[in-house]
């Protein structure tokens, strides 16, 4: 690895001052959370920052709490900790499953959801689950803070919406509504240590009669970035998730998908699998809504 300076600020104020010094000096600065992707990129020479700012000692980036009606996941909290947080397992089982699919136990012990999001891989497993659950990115700016829905935070292959000098501090989502459930599934040729060929996340809410009142379906690995398939969700609202409704949602998702062909799957294959997974994920999420009704 090429030489760099290492800093580990212990407060948001100290982080701001690190960032402004770095910007003033015109140095290429890199934020470090879990480092499981970053260190590999640096060792392989794909990234050569002159200054590393480790954000793991800042209270805001290490927060993990459900307070009031909001779940906060600090940008540097390791995946294993998020997955093992009882409130995440209970209220966001789809997100917990998405986290469980990432890398190995060792990677999950270190890698953060914030890093998975900032890397903005089209195939990142947590991103569709975050989008489906309505997570917002809380971003530190030079003057203050701004928020962006996760679907607006990822803007291309490996590209996120952060401006120079901005840092992702936390991800926040509203606590799920009553009678609602989430799910995430992906297709991979092998069951572990693999990257999604297609990934689909959903959050479904039903009323007391079991009619769907809200549906958010997010697709991964079928476009340059994960995205919210609004038409697929809209096809479900007002239905009870009958087979025809699932077919309509799947058709809308397949229509919205813009997959590429690569060594892991052809565009046609990806589009078809996308439809299959939408049906499975909606059924799974619906099952979780009904579980709460009983």
């Amino acid at each position, binding site marked *: 690895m090429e030489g760099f300076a*290492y800093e580990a600020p212990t407060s948001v104020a100290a982080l701001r001052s690190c960032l402004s010094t770095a910007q003033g000096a015109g140095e290429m600065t890199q934020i*470090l959370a879990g*480092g499981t992707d970053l*260190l590999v990129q640096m060792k392989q020479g794909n990234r050569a920052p002159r200054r590393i700012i480790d954000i793991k000692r800042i209270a805001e980036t290490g927060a993990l709490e459900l307070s009031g009606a909001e779940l906060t996941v600090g940008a540097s909290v390791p995946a*294993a900790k998020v997955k093992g947080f009882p409130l995440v397992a209970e209220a966001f089982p789809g997100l917990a499953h998405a986290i469980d699919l990432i890398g*190995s*136990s*060792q990677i999950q*012990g*270190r890698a953060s959801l914030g890093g998975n999001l900032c890397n903005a891989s089209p195939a990142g497993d947590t991103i569709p689950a975050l989008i489906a659950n309505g997570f917002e990115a809380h971003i530190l700016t030079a003057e203050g803070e701004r928020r962006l829905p996760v679907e607006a935070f990822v803007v291309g292959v490996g590209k996120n919406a952060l401006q120079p000098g901005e840092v992702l501090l936390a991800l926040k989502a509203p606590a799920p509504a009553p009678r609602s459930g989430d799910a995430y599934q992906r297709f991979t040729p092998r069951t572990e240590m693999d990257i999604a060929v297609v990934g689909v996340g959903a959050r479904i809410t039903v009323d007391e009669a079991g009619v769907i009142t809200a549906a958010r379906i997010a697709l991964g690995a079928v476009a340059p970035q994960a995205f919210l398939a609004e038409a697929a969700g809209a096809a479900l609202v007002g239905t009870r998730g009958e087979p025809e409704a699932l077919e309509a949602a799947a058709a809308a998702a397949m229509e919205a998908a813009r997959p590429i062909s690569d060594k892991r799957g052809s565009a046609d294959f990806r589009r078809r699998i996308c439809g299959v997974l939408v049906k499975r994920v909606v059924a799974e999420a619906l099952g979780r809504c009904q579980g709460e009704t009983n």
Partner: protein
Amino acid sequence: MKCHVQTQVNGEAVEFLCDPTATLLEVLRDTLGLRGSKEGCGTGDCGACSVEVDGALACSCLILAPEVEGRQVSTIEGVASPEALHPIQNHLLKSAGLQCGVCTPGIVVAAKHLLEQNPNPSEEAVRYFLAGNLCRCTGYDKIIRAVLDAAAEMRGEAA
């Protein structure tokens, strides 16, 4: 500029100077002389360098040494007591769960972490949990059996 790092390794206070680019694995092996952790791939794929940092399982090849300032690092060297091997180590020997032995320290560290979280894992759970520990010799079956037998022994059941 060198970083001055104060930390704990296997319960003992340790301090060292390192370049900011040094990985925890390099410092453990080359500065502190703890050569149990191995470098297999250097990219977090093989698990041979597995350690715990503040109780979290991690690949020490993907951690910068300055990151462990004030943390608690546990390595393979802290697993056995002076009197006895850990049950996982005993069962790996008994089941012939190793040949060349390069992956073994990482497997012991990871399996110990698993059994502390889940004393009674299914075979499937052990296989998934150890998916990030590659072994090119054994074909895994003997390793999985050794971990399950160690778990049974640690629960007080006959293994």
